[in-house]
C-alpha cells in the first residue's frame, strides 16, 4: 500500500505517485509553512483519543507484543513533545534570533526521505513525527516487516489534522527496487537512514551528493567496572539489565570491562556476577527464554571452537545464562540473551581500545568508587561514548537526552540568516 496526501492507494499506483511527487512537494512548500503548534495539537489530541479507548480494535490488531499503551501514551503528550523541542532546540526554537547585522531563523530542511528499520515496531512513525515537528515533508519507506501499523497511524493522524496530509507519504516498497528508492532520494533534502551497516552503506550509495545524509546506525554498549559503591546492589542491577534486554538493544551491555590486568581478579569477578545473572534468568517467564539463552551461548561456543578462538578463555556456565572471560580487550557483540563477555581493560588502555570502535559506541554503565567517578566519566566521554549511566540503567530513557550523541531535531533543520 501507499499513503499519499491523505489517501491509501494500491502499490500499482507507485510509479504514478512518485512521478507526481515533485509537483506535490513544491505545492506544499509554496503554501504557508506547517506550524509546530499544529503538529503538537494533532498528536496530543490523538494521544487523548487513544487513551479514551477509541482505537482499541486497531491497537489489538497492530500494537506489537511487548509494547503497552501505557508506555506509548506519554510519548504522544503535548508536555513530552514540548520538552523535546526545548531540550533539543532551546526555548522559542523557531523564533528569530537577532545578531548585529542579521537575524537567524531555523527552517525545515525541506523534504526528508526516511528509510525505516524493521527491528523496532513504531519507529517508522516516530521518525516521521520528528520530521513533522521540524516542519518537513516526509517520505517514508516502510520496512518489510511492517504489517500496516505505520499506515494506520499516518491515516488517523491525517484524519485528526487534515493540514498534515501534504506532509506525509509512505511507500511499501522493497529496498531491492533501486529505481524507486533512487527516485525518492532524489526528491529529498535529507535522507534519514536507520539500520545496520549494510543498510546504511546501501543508502549512502543511493543518496545524491547535495543531499544531507542522516544516519542512525546500530551501536554497542558496555559496562566499565573499576570498583563499587554498593557491590551487591550494583551487580544485581547490571545482571537484571543484561537479562531483561536480552542484550539486543543498542544500549545493552555486551561486554563488562574490568579496570585490572589481573586474571585471578577477573575470574573472581565472573564468579561473583554469575549468581546474579542466574537469579535474573530464573525470573524469565516460560522455558522458551532460557532455551534461547542456551542455544545462543552454545552456538557461539561452537563457532569459536571451529574458528580456533577458544584458547585462553574461561566459560562460567549458569542456568539460562553464562559469563565468558575472554583474553582480548576488544568491544564486540556478545552471544546475547544473558551470555555476557568479561574482559580486562585497565583504564590506561581504555581510550585507544575503544577508539577502534568509533561510530559504534553508545552507552557505558559505570561502576566505580565515588572518588573515581568524575575522572572515569571524563575518560569514557573522551573515548567516544555518548551516554554514561549507573549500573542498571544503561537502557533507561532520560528526558532531554540526545540520540547517539546528537539532537535529531537539529539535524532536520537548517539556519537561514537574513541581513537586516
Amino acid at each position: 500500500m501507499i499513503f499519499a496526501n491523505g489517501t491509501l492507494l494500491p502499490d500499482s499506483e507507485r510509479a504514478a505517485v512518485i512521478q507526481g511527487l515533485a509537483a506535490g512537494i513544491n505545492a506544499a512548500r509554496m503554501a504557508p509553512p506547517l506550524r509546530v503548534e499544529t503538529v503538537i495539537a494533532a498528536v496530543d489530541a490523538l494521544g487523548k483519543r487513544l487513551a479514551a479507548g477509541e482505537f482499541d480494535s486497531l491497537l489489538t490488531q497492530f500494537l506489537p507484543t511487548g509494547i503497552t499503551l501505557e508506555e506509548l501514551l506519554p510519548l504522544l503528550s503535548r508536555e513530552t513533545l514540548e520538552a523535546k523541542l526545548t531540550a533539543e532546540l532551546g526555548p522559542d526554537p523557531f523564533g528569530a534570533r537577532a545578531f548585529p547585522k542579521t537575524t537567524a531563523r531555523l527552517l525545515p530542511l525541506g523534504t526528508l526521505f526516511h528509510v525505516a528499520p524493521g527491528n523496532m515496531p513504531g519507529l517508522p512513525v516516530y521518525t516521521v513525527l520528528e520530521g513533522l515537528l521540524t516542519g518537513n515533508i516526509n517520505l517514508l519507506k516502510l520496512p518489510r516487516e511492517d504489517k500496516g501499523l505505520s499506515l494506520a497511524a499516518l491515516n488517523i493522524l491525517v484524519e485528526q489534522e487534515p493540514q498534515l496530509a501534504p506532509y506525509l507519504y509512505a511507500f511499501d516498497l522493497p529496498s531491492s527496487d533501486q529505481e524507486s528508492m533512487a527516485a525518492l532520494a532524489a526528491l529529498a533534502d535529507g535522507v534519514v537512514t536507520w539500520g545496520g551497516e549494510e543498510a546504511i552503506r546501501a543508502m549512502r550509495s543511493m543518496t545524491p551528493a547535495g543531499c544531507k545524509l542522516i544516519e542512525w546506525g546500530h551501536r554497542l554498549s558496555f559496562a566499565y567496572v573499576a570498583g563499587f559503591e554498593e557491590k551487591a546492589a550494583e551487580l544485581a542491577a547490571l545482571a537484571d539489565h543484561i537479562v531483561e534486554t536480552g542484550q539486543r538493544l543498542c544500549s545493552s551491555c555486551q561486554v563488562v570491562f574490568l579496570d585490572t590486568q589481573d586474571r585471578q581478579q577477573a575470574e573472581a569477578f565472573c564468579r561473583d556476577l554469575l549468581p546474579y545473572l542466574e537469579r535474573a534468568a530464573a525470573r524469565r517467564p516460560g522455558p522458551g527464554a532460557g532455551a534461547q539463552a542456551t542455544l545462543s551461548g552454545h552456538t557461539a561456543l561452537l563457532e569459536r571452537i571451529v574458528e580456533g578462538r577458544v584458547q585462553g578463555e574461561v566459560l562460567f556456565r549458569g542456568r539460562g545464562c553464562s559469563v565468558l572471560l575472554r583474553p582480548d580487550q576488544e568491544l564486540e557483540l556478545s552471544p546475547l540473551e544473558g551470555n555476557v563477555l568479561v574482559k580486562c581493560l585497565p583504564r590506561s588502555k581504555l581510550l585507544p581500545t575503544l577508539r577502534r570502535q568509533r561510530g559504534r559506541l553508545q552507552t557505558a554503565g559505570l561502576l566505580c568508587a565515588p572518588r573515581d567517578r568524575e575522572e572515569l566519566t571524563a575518560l569514557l566521554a573522551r573515548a567516544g561514548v555518548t551516554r554514561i549511566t549507573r549500573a542498571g540503567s544503561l537502557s533507561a530513557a532520560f528526558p532531554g537526552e540526545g540520540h547517539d550523541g546528537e539532537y535529531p531535531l537539529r539535524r532536520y533543520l537548517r539556519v537561514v540568516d537574513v541581513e537586516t
Partner: protein
Amino acid sequence: MLSRQRLFWTAHPYDLLRSEEKFLQACRDNAAYHIKHCPGYAAVCAHFGFSPDQLRTPEDLARLPVLPTLFFKRKALFSMPQWRMAMKVTSSGTSGKYSRIGFDWGCILAEAPMVVALGFRHHLVSPKPAHCVILGYRPHRSNHTGVTRTMFGLTHFSPPLSRTYALELVDGAYVPDLDRIAAALQKLEASPFPTRIIGFPSYLWFGLGRMEELGLRVKLPRGSRIILAGGWKQHAAQEVDKATLYALAEKVLGIPEGNVNELFGAVEHPIFYNACERHHFHIPVYGRVIIRDPESLEPLPMGRVGLVNLISPLMTATPTLSVMTDDLGYLTPGEACGCGIQSPYLTILGRVGMADIQTCAAGAAELLGKGEAF
C-alpha cells in the same frame, strides 16, 4: 559406509530395539568419518572430549556433540568437496538466513528404502494415478529449499497426472494464489482420478478458510489424500489445532481424517517422520530423539519438555549427526498412543522464539541469522 546402508535398508521401520546395534555402529562410523574429513567438527569433538568409541550403549548417544540448526545458519561445514555431493540444499530461511547442507550420494541411496518402507506403512504409495495440488512453491533452478524438493518428491508416491502450484514464480518472486487453487479443486471434483493435496499446513488452513468464505464446497474423488509437510512458518501465531483443521478439510473437500498424512523433517535431519493414524510422530529406526534441559542441555527423562535433539547417521557431506532445532518438545512412550507402533513419539510444542527477536545492537541481526532487515 556400509553400516549406514545396513541401518536404512530395514524391513521393520519402527523396531527400535532390533535396530539398536546397527544404529550405534552407523553413528560410530559417521562420527569417525566427519572427524577425519571435517576439521571444524574434529575441533568440536576434541573440545568436548568426544571420540566415536565412546558410543557403546544407546545412552551414550547423548555424548555426541550437539550442533544447533542456528549454528548451520552461521557456518557452512562440509566433510567432502562439493563436486562429490549429490546436491546442496538450504533450509527455507523464513527469517532471512538459512542453513546450507550438502547431500552425498550414499545418503540418497539410504533415503530411498526409508521413504519406500514408510510410504507403504502409512498408505502413501498407490498405483492409481492422481492429480497433485501443491500448496507450496513451484520448483525452479533458483530455488534450493529442501521443502520445495520434498513436496515435489512427494508427488511421486502415485503416478502424477498433473501438478498445480499455489506459489508461482512471477517476475522473480513467489506469489500465492489460493483462488486459482480453489478453482482447480472444483474442476478435479469431476475427475475419475483422485487428488493429492500436498503442502504447508498454514496454506491448507488459509485455503480452506478462503473456500468457506466463498461458499465453495467440493467432494474430491474417493482415495484423495492430503499430505502436510513443512511447518506453520511465519503463520505460527495462527496455528490451529489439528482436529479443527481436519474437520474443515472433510467439510470443504470431502477428504476424511483417515486420508490425511502429516510429515515432519528438517533439512539438517531429513528423516521421513510420518504421523500415525492418531497423529503422533513415532520415531523410526533411522533416527533417535533426545529431549534436553533448555538451560543445561542435560538429557531429560521421557515426558519432560525441553529442546529437541535429533540424531541420525544419514549424512556424510555435512556433520549433522546430532543436531538441535529451536523447537521445544517432549517424548511419550509408544504404548500410550494405542496405534500399535511401539516406538516413542515426539510432540513439538513450537519454536522458542529466536525468529521474533528484534534488535538494534550492532551486528546482532546477522548473529541471530536474520540477515539484514531493511
